[in-house]
């Protein structure tokens, strides 16, 4: 029963979602199932929070490797929760002027932006490795990348202006034809993979997610 019930529920919900995609009146059920998912996910957040506190609390208590990071996690969680719940000044906690908003804009937001900004450096280091001309494919990648990068910046236009912006046009051609064709081939494969996987899940052939073999 522990495995059969989830499989039956999955099949029922999966088939309903497919039908609802083509038969609009079934959207009522689709919306209902989606609401249920969000309700379950909302309740499940408490599992996550309790796990976060248990794992990091245990790490701090046992002074395990990296325990100060666990302390930062728990303090950060408590500060944001307490301020969001009890120091919102009688207004919605996300409103400008509230302590929560202040922390969000002055702590959380810059930290997130910092992580995102790291991408600039990582793109450079990954590109350096990927563009090394070790074989024919990597050399082609290097050439295409060079044309694209130079063709998309003003200096590229300046270099190839006397050729009628040949680099820019070549860069556009690479993006419009080989790149689009390759990307679409991957996307068709992905779409078919999703259809096939979904059918396997609905039919109960794929059951690892229910901890079945």
């Amino acid at each position: 029963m522990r495995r059969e019930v989830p499989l039956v529920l999955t099949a029922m919900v999966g088939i309903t979602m497919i039908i609802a995609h083509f038969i609009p009146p079934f959207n009522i059920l689709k919306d209902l199932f989606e609401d249920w998912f969000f309700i379950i996910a909302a309740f499940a957040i408490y599992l996550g929070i309790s796990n976060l506190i248990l794992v990091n609390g245990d790490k701090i208590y046992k002074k395990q490797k990296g325990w100060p990071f666990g302390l930062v996690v728990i303090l950060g969680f408590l500060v944001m929760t307490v301020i969001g719940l009890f120091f919102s000044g009688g207004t919605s906690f996300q409103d400008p002027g509230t302590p929560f908003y202040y922390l969000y804009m002055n702590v959380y937001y810059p930290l997130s932006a910092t992580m995102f900004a790291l991408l600039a450096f990582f793109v450079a280091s990954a590109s350096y490795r990927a563009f090394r001309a070790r074989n024919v494919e990597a050399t082609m990648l290097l050439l295409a990348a060079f044309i694209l990068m130079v063709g998309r910046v003003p200096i590229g236009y300046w270099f190839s202006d006397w050729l009628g912006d040949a680099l820019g046009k070549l860069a556009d051609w690479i993006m419009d034809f080989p790149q689009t064709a390759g990307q679409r081939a991957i996307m068709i494969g992905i779409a078919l993979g999703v259809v096939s996987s979904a059918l396997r899940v609905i039919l109960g052939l794929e059951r690892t997610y229910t901890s079945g073999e």
Partner: protein
Amino acid sequence: MVGAEDVTNPVAESTKGIQTPPAPPTNVTAKDIPNDKGGAVTISWGKSADDGSGAKNVTKYEILRSTKRDEGYEVIGNTVAGATSFSDNAAENKVLYFYKIKVLSPTGTAESLPSASTFAKRQWFNLSRLSLFILSLVIGFAILYFIERAKSEKGLFIRRIAGLEAVDDAVGRATEMGRKIIFVPGIMDMDSMQTIAAVTILGRVAKLAAEYEAKLEVPVCTSLVMVTCREVVKEAYLNAGRPDVYNDKMVYYVTNDQFAYAAALDGLFLRERPAAVFLQGQFYAESLILAETANSVGAIQIAGTAMPTQLPFFVAACDYTLIGEELFAASAYLSKDPKLLGSLKGQDVGKFIFLLVILIGAVFLTLNSVLGLNLPNLGRLF
């Protein structure tokens, strides 16, 4: 129907006496939203001549509705200045409605003339998805047919997928080095097929880790994924005959936030210096941050995603990458179950259909262009 000349609408009124009201919206039309479950009407209008600038600049539009043309109008919603349409999602099916748009500005308000009557109705089939429906049926039946056929067919061929072949090596490497294996199942919830595919691969990795007694750690981004991964890992250790090695703390929740998750994992990679990192599932901008950090600590990396925008990053930064459909083929590949392999063969039929349609479509368009023919554009079918 209200024309552009109706800006001097007789129903325009000023709320401040001597001030001039703004010009009312024009051409108000209301139509049932097609191919839906009913209960919805879309209202469109031409912007007020005062929308955009000036002393009478419009602040917002209010949408009014009535079942009678000349009276009983009630406000059912509003939109910001500049908007030219609104969806009334609270209409009753088969009830005739008239709509008016009221424009508000600092100098007063003005109402448009009413729209022609319209009513919402339910459609029993979404005709805009007919071609998709037929294609889904064909591909779905092909997959089911090959699944059924595979039950009696032995030795179905599946091409080698380097990323999945490398799973054993990665786990073995971690065992030999005495370092951890870190499995990251993407940043999305269990409603993503990519997360489900990632969990399938986790089952295999966990089983190998249990057999080799390698240390496995699964930091996750959502609570439901945590619960699912925990069950899968526990079952894998049980199947490997090592339930004693399993510990609930192997799978733990970090945060739902994308960059906080990336920061936590980066720290984990740098502190623990894992021997193997699996990045499987749905990733966004954090993909390269994770892959490059894991690369910097010398971990062998096996990535897999169906996000076309993130694939180049994984290909550049990781040792092996499961590209798109390979991620979904993982369960069939790893289990070698004939029924699952049969579903892959069904997928190939789908690919053949797409290839055929693309080829015929390209030939038709070329003939249209070169010979001036009028052959159908197959691209419009989908």
